[in-house]
Structures are given as C-alpha cells and as structure tokens.
C-alpha cells in the first residue's frame, strides 16, 4: 500500500511516496493512517492541517483503506 506525498509532506518525509510498511502498523482507516503519520513524523502535527484522499477523493477519517486504493496526503492547498 503506497501513500503519495505532496508539497510540504514530501519534504517532511524526504520522498514522494511512502509504503505502509514504513509505518508502525498497517492503518485500516484514514483515521488510523493520520495517527500513524503523526506518530512517525512529528512534523505532521505542526501543519495547519492535512487531508487524505482515497482514489482521488477527499476521505473522512472513518473511510476504510483497501489494498489497491490510491492513497494521497493532501497538505493545505495553495493553488491559484
């Protein structure tokens, strides 16, 4: 399970994607993924906010993660 990183989260982790095996335990939901990231990378807790997208859609914390999902971390957007 790959997690795509953008913007400042890519800088924090130091690469453009993360494998769940890099985290302490495999997250079953978006909520668990957020907790795991905050634990593994304390810099994440200092961000204004960050969202998670599952298969290209913003996902709330209850959303379950499945093996083939495309998961992405969305730090505060600043386009335009």
């Amino acid at each position, binding site marked *: 399970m790959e997690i795509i990183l953008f*913007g*400042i989260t890519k800088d924090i982790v130091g690469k453009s994607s993360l494998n769940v095996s890099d985290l302490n335990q495999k997250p079953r939901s978006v909520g668990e993924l957020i907790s795991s990231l905050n634990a593994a990378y304390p810099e994440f807790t200092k961000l*204004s906010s960050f969202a998670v997208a599952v298969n290209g859609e913003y996902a709330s914390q209850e959303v379950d993660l499945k093996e083939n999902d495309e998961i*992405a971390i969305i730090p505060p*957007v600043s*386009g335009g």
Partner: protein
Amino acid sequence: MNEPIIEIVENIDTAKVYTELSDSKSGGICVFVGTVRDFTNNEPVISLEFEAYKSMAIKEMAKIIDQAAEKWPLNRVVMRHAVGLKKVKEPVVVIGVSSAHREACFEACRYMIDTLKETVPIWKKEMFKDKSVWVSAHP
C-alpha cells in the same frame, strides 16, 4: 453549457482563451488570470513553484465548474492551471467564463477562483533569495 476545458499544463498561453470562450450565445466573457507578483509579506519573491496531484486536481476542477453551472447559466468555461517554476509576471492560473449576460460570468469566475484556492490539490512554494516556503502549510 459546452464541454468545459480543464487542464494542468506547463505553460499557459493567455492569448488563446478568448477563442476558446467565444460563443454566439454569449454577450459577456470574464477572465481571471493569476500571476506571480514580486513581493509577499514584504519580502521579494524570486519565483513560485507549483506542484499538483494532477488526476485529483482535474476531478476537483470539474466539480467546481459543475457547481458554478448549477448556480449560473454559463455557455463556456476554461480552467487551466500551471505547474512547475514560474517567474514574476508569468500566469499561473486562468479561469474564463462566457455567458449571455455579464452578471453570470463575473460571479461564476469569482466563485471558481475562490473555490479552486480552497479545494484543488495544487501546492505553491515561494522561492525567496535565501529560503523557500510552502504557502499556508503552517499556521
């Protein structure tokens, strides 16, 4: 409404947007172009770098256009965002709308740029002389 033009590109050609929006049913065309300015918070900016989660950004841009088309009667829409390094004065986003009357194109154009800045997964890094900062990343 005609099929909108939604793109994430390396370079924006502002000259062609009118051809794309021109429409025999439209009396008004409103275009917003976001450009790189040379100062942010009183610090000279050298350039901006844009990164996009392209597939999702296109989907979110399409949602914004659908929402606008529900609120206002629109004929044609162009929404185009640049990625990569952009120097001062270069265009980074173009949003254009044509409609029968001018109220709709002004309001829809404003709505679309405001919402793009809130929801579309695109990130901007400001490059200063001796540092670079991801905009809005920290409180």
